[in-house]
């Protein structure tokens, strides 16, 4: 009986402590709260161990993944055939685009845009939860990595950096529901926003709810959102298009190019977001002078009639 009472008291105390922690973390700004220091410390300490463990187990894990993949090979084969057909159809339009692109570059006298400066990184760990899609990579501030930098691989957009320590960084994957990015459709140029849905398809919302969309349209990043994402990084293709609802929104599903279950190596783009422009403030101390009055016309020199002071005869 005494033991049960002790357990209840401990339960109440720990529930209270948990609620206090939740409140502290909930009220702290993202990435700057007192508990975020603990997160960074844990990433720094566990990162190297996870790195070693991951390298040791990855070959075995890949064998298991390959065995699992055997079952989906047939479906994948058909998808690849479809993709080849799509690419063959696009060859003509790409050649046309290249020509147009070159013409425009010459016309504007712009020099060829340099490729992205990147840092290659290796994935050392994934997030511990089944409801948070993050990875830990083996590069950090020592390698020039900063928060909000974009992470890509050979297939396209992987995510963005959300936490950095000297030797490691944590990346929010594009399929996480907390991820969002400004995007553009390559075929029509329509813009919108995309966010993760926790695996499977991502959700696209176009700025114009009645934008012209087709299955297979390619979605790339757009340089909005203060330029967090460099423009033109491939994300995926439109897979499902829902009907426009009464509130003028459409459920559009985008199948990402990146296979998020195989993120062995990634690249961090050394591209800094544009800093927020300072707000325009009007200094009330500057006196506002009234405009000069319009020059008045020169007075007419004609004699004015004034009352005579002389007495009349």
């Amino acid at each position, binding site marked *: 009986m005494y033991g049960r009472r002790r357990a209840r008291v401990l339960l109440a105390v720990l529930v209270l402590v948990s609620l206090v922690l939740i409140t502290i973390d*909930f009220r702290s700004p993202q990435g700057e709260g007192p508990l975020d220091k603990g997160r960074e410390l844990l990433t720094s300490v566990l990162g190297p161990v996870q790195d070693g463990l991951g390298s040791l187990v990855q070959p075995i894990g890949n064998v298991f993944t390959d065995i699992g993949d055997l079952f989906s090979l047939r479906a994948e084969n058909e998808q690849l055939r479809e993709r080849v057909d799509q690419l063959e159809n696009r060859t003509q339009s790409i050649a046309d685009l290249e020509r147009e692109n070159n013409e425009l570059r010459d016309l504007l006298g712009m020099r060829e845009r340099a490729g992205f400066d990147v840092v290659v990184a290796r994935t050392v760990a994934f997030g511990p939860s089944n409801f948070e899609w993050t990875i830990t990579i083996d590069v950090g501030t020592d390698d020039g990595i900063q928060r909000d930098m974009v992470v890509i691989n050979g297939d396209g957009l992987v995510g963005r950096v959300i936490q950095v320590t000297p030797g490691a960084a944590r990346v929010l994957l594009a399929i996480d529901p907390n991820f969002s990015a400004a995007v553009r459709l390559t075929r029509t140029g329509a813009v919108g926003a995309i966010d993760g849905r926790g695996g499977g398809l991502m959700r696209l919302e176009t700025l114009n709810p009645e934008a012209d969309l087709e299955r297979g349209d390619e979605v790339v990043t757009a340089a909005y959102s203060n330029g967090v994402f460099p423009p033109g990084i491939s994300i995926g293709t439109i897979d499902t298009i829902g009907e426009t609802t009464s509130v003028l929104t459409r459920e559009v599903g985008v199948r990402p190019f990146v296979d998020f279950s195989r993120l062995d190596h990634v690249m961090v783009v050394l591209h800094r977001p544009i800093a927020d422009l300072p707000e325009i403030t009007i200094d009330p101390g500057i006196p506002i002078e009234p405009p000069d009055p319009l020059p008045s016309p020169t007075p007419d020199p004609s004699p004015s009639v004034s009352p005579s002071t002389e007495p009349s005869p």
Partner: protein
Amino acid sequence: MITRMAVVALVIVTLALFQTAVFPYLTISGFRPDLLLLVVMAFALRDGPIVGLRVGFAAGLLADLLLDFSAVGITALVFLGVGYIVGVVRPYLSDESFSAPLVLSGLTGFLGTAGVAILSGLLGEQPFGIGLIVEASVLVALYNVILSPIVVGLVTRLVDRFPAQGLFAAP
């Protein structure tokens, strides 16, 4: 006592490392087991609600600190609840039962996973779809049942070797 605490801490950290560095390569339909939830269940089943609460809080806090968007304390709250409930029902289960740990692994896997997802959604994180929550909870429960004999066996050996004493002994 200190040795036992160190051993329990080592078990929790090791399983967290396995969960983040090893099991992402061994997923079932993209979902991994929840080894920390499994270890909480195993300790509570062996040592009762007080140990269940303590291990649940510690393991949950570690998981929270390894996450980025979920507020620190949510997983700790759910895991300590799981530890307490398993510890409370423990006297009603046979020590020799083989099925009890399996059933509890499945139940705690399902309820713990769904609990964290629902609580995170209620506390401001991006809410998850009900389909995703059910799918994840079912697969985690299934995976935890498969791994249950290994983890429960490991915890049983550790508890036999380093039994809980004094305040931490099962009531």
